[in-house]
């Protein structure tokens, strides 16, 4: 079969409607009789609820219902534990509405439904809650201590998991190593900040006893399954649709947020459709966050700069509950080794409850942490050993002939990490060449002579992508010849409507514009897990390919009967089905589809059923590993701390490229989010656990002014783990950004001897570091 569309830079099927403002997001839904909800949230980081009095709120004009924990019956139980782990000894989850204790600012306490959102919001002020404030565990390191205030009073401490992975014998190796350098590296909190906040609409249909839900989620099928169980309904009676979703980035794969239960609950109680849309301020306290970790790490090297051991012992801030288990710290610890040969590795973490918003994966999901630690250690070693930064990396890279490469760790999917393919030295070479590394020393000296502080950074990463358990796809050819592709992985802007169409188009000999992709609707396809972990192209993409090829086989079978040829003589091209070498003996694909669904007479048994339709699943046993190198040149103003990114080069390898334009878009967005997390975005909390950045005035997202024009290059090493040869790319852009920016800033400010051990920085923080360095002049 010839490939015409896979790999092509074709415009996105989804863009015409999105660009014309004709998308349909949850808040665009207007159902007859629909009413509106608002959530009363805890203003305290930690408090006992002594009393809730809703009488005044109930009497307020336009109020239809005020729900507290007492109304929820069994829906008031702690929400499901999503991803258990043997080391997770205290798998605490929140309640849809707090019953006795609130454990972070923003935790839901009551739910008001009114004719209008306006009335609902006003009624929130009329709910009298008597709180008895309790001491809060806020700072991660303090919270991990035995004497810290406890977030959950049935625990002896705030540590909910303690997990260690080992490769080789790091203790012995470090004891015998020639050089050892230790760093303490701190990463603070950030938010994904999608353009669209969360939102849920639910409509209970009393006549059919069914529930229809529209949810801005990355995981409509698990939401459907969970709600069916919680509401004691058959799965077939619950339909969850994730319509257009304005960005997910991880937090929207969390299930179940309290509102996902409260909105359908209220709809069933009132017999009316209910809408709740999260406002931006709520988003900053009520949608999961990420990134907070403190690593005590050490690198041990031999006399040639070869790594002999790495050790990290770190704290992971889980927030007040840990529904999503240990995914983030496991990913951090397993991403750390990256593209380097590390014969001995000790990785140990404690997951710690704090009185802050819940943590679950956000784009990168621990990978930026692991890479930050590894790359900072290498930078430190290079400096101490007076080695070239690129050379110390090159010297330690896994070589192309070493694949498959056993890392010796267990990944987030509970499977052994086995790098399937890659060419790490080639990626490093290309990045170093593109950024002009060879001439850098002279260039930098020229900048310094001109009074400018300009620095270069280069950092590598490996990303585990495309994990299981499975995804599926049903491909159907209609009598019109139009192809429908239905799969469970919803889209939040990644371009599924286009790349899945490209894959199906190539298998069936049609154009991508002849293919309509349906995702995120449990009524269209009911099996699947969701969109996360850079896995849609790999897992669902392969399922699309398998299903489309199966439909191609069926088409040949049916056409063979109609055209009086053998199936293997039938070709599919440009929407027609014909006998090879005899183009005149042809039918349109639609005609074959119509013939495959006869109205009378016998149907050949070998058709195994009517229609041109097939469903296939792909269940990869383990991840496939992408990799890349980022290099950048930055200029820092030591007096103002301002950062300007002069150049930013990305060389990355995610196997076979399905659509370079979409891929570059993914990389661009990832780098932008990475830059935010490296320099501007910080969710600060005060010592009592009050969030201090709950608006975009305080939480600074990088804009078109800060994000440079990116230079993206693709290296293509096909994955041997799936028939398309693809690897995931969704998170790649974000992963090494903090590491590369830290190195570049350090390089720029080398005359001051600044040492960067934290992320995010900020202009203010850079100024402080410069001021401290100026007080202690160095050579």
């Amino acid at each position, binding site marked *: 079969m010839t490939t015409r569309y896979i790999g092509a830079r074709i415009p996105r099927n989804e863009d015409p409607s999105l660009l014309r403002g004709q998308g349909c997001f949850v808040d665009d839904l207007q159902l007859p009789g629909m009413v509106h909800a608002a959530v009363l949230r805890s*203003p305290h980081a930690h408090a006992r609820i002594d009393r809730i009095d809703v009488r005044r709120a109930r009497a307020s004009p336009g109020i239809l219902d005020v729900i507290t924990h007492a109304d929820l019956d069994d829906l008031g139980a702690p929400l499901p534990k999503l991803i258990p782990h043997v080391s997770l000894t205290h798998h605490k989850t929140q309640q849809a509405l707090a019953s006795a204790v609130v454990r972070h*600012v923003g935790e839901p306490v009551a739910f008001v439904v009114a004719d209008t959102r306006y009335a609902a919001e006003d009624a*929130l002020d009329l709910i009298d809650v008597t709180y008895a404030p309790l001491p809060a565990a806020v700072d991660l390191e303090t919270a991990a201590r035995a004497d810290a205030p406890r977030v959950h009073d049935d625990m002896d401490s705030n540590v909910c998991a303690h997990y260690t992975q080992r490769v080789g014998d790091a203790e012995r190796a470090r004891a015998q190593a020639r050089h050892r350098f230790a760093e303490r590296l701190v990463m603070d909190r950030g938010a994904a900040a999608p353009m669209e906040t969360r939102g849920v609409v639910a409509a209970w249909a009393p006549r059919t006893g069914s529930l229809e839900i529209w949810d801005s989620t990355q995981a409509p099928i698990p939401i459907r399954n969970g709600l069916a169980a919680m509401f004691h309904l058959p799965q077939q009676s619950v339909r969850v649709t994730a319509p257009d979703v304005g960005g997910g980035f991880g937090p929207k794969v969390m299930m179940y947020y309290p509102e996902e239960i409260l909105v359908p609950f209220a709809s069933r109680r009132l017999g009316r459709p209910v809408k709740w849309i999260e406002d931006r*301020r709520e988003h900053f306290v009520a949608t999961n966050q990420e990134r907070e970790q403190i690593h005590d790490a050490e690198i041990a090297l031999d006399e040639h700069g070869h790594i002999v051991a790495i050790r990290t012992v770190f704290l992971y801030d889980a927030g007040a509950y840990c529904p999503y288990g240990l995914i983030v710290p496991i990913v951090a610890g397993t991403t750390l080794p990256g593209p380097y040969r590390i014969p001995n590795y000790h990785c140990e973490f404690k997951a710690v409850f704090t009185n802050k918003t819940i943590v679950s994966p956000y784009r990168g999901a621990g990978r930026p942490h692991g890479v930050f630690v590894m790359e900072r250690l290498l930078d430190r070693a290079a400096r101490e050993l007076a080695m070239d930064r690129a050379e110390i990396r090159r010297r330690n890279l896994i070589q192309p002939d070493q694949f498959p490469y056993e890392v010796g760790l267990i990944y987030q999917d509970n499977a052994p990490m086995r790098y399937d393919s890659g060419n790490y030295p080639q990626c490093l070479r290309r990045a170093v060449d593109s950024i002009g590394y060879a001439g850098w020393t002279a260039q930098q000296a020229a900048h310094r002579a001109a009074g400018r502080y300009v620095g270069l950074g280069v950092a590598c990463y490996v990303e585990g992508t495309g994990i299981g358990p499975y995804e599926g796809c049903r491909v159907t050819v209609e009598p019109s010849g139009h192809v429908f592709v239905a799969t469970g992985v919803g889209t939040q802007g990644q371009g599924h409507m286009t790349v899945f169409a490209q894959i199906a188009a190539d298998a069936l000999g049609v154009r991508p514009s002849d293919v309509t992709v349906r995702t995120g609707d449990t009524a269209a396809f009911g099996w699947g897990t969701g969109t996360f972990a850079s896995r849609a192209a790999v897992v669902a993409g392969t399922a699309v390919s398998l299903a489309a090829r199966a439909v191609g086989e069926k088409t040949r079978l049916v056409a063979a009967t109609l055209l009086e040829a053998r199936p293997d003589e039938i070709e599919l091209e440009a929407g027609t089905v014909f006998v090879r070498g005899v183009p005149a003996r042809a039918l349109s694909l639609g005609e074959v589809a119509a013939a495959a669904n006869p109205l009378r007479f016998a149907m050949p048994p070998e058709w195994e059923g009517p229609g041109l339709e097939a469903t296939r699943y792909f269940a990869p046993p383990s991840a496939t590993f992408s990799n890349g190198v980022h290099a950048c040149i930055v200029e820092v103003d030591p007096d103002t701390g301002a950062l300007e990114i002069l150049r930013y080069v990305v060389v990355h390898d995610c196997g076979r490229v399905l659509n370079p334009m979409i891929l570059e878009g993914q990389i661009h967005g990832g780098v932008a989010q990475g830059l935010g997390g490296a320099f501007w975005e910080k969710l600060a909390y005060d010592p009592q656990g009050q*969030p*201090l*950045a709950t608006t975009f005035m305080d939480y600074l997202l990088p804009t078109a002014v800060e994000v440079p024009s990116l230079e993206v290059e693709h290296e293509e090493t096909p994955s041997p783990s799936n028939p398309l040869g693809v690897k995931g790319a969704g998170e790649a852009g974000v992963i090494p950004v903090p590491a590369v920016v830290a190195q570049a800033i350090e390089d720029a400010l080398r005359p001051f001897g600044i040492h960067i051990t934290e992320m995010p920085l900020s202009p203010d923080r850079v100024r402080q570091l410069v001021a401290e360095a100026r007080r202690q002049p160095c050579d």
Partner: protein
Amino acid sequence: MRLEGTNLLPASVETVWKTINDPEALRRCTPGLKELKEIGPDTYQATLTIGIAAVKGTYAGTLAITDKRAPTHYKISLDGSGGAGFMKGEGTVDLEPQGDGTTLKWVGDLQIGGLIAGVGQRMLGGVGKMLIGQFFKCLEQHLGGGT
């Protein structure tokens, strides 16, 4: 958040002490105070309306004066909540003669939460100082008028 300051007031320690214990003076000089109702000895029920940044809120709560060492020292505690969040403060006031007047030293620790904390935090130090400044300016006028 810790706030502190020193004000020089044009009256004797005794007069200042009387004034800062006088509900009428407190009522007149506390910015945004809508209601101050004595509910026990040195304990008041208070309603305050204060705007910080874009967040204007009404807070209902209690104000209590304790640890009194007339005429030079007391402790004041404030505890209030409303739709825009909550505030909880504790401070001390110390008076010292200074020539014909009195030096009033105040130190306070204010905790705020909810909407005002998230949205108004950056302004809060400044707004707090401004409000306390208004309070003492009013007190100064009150005392000046009385002599």
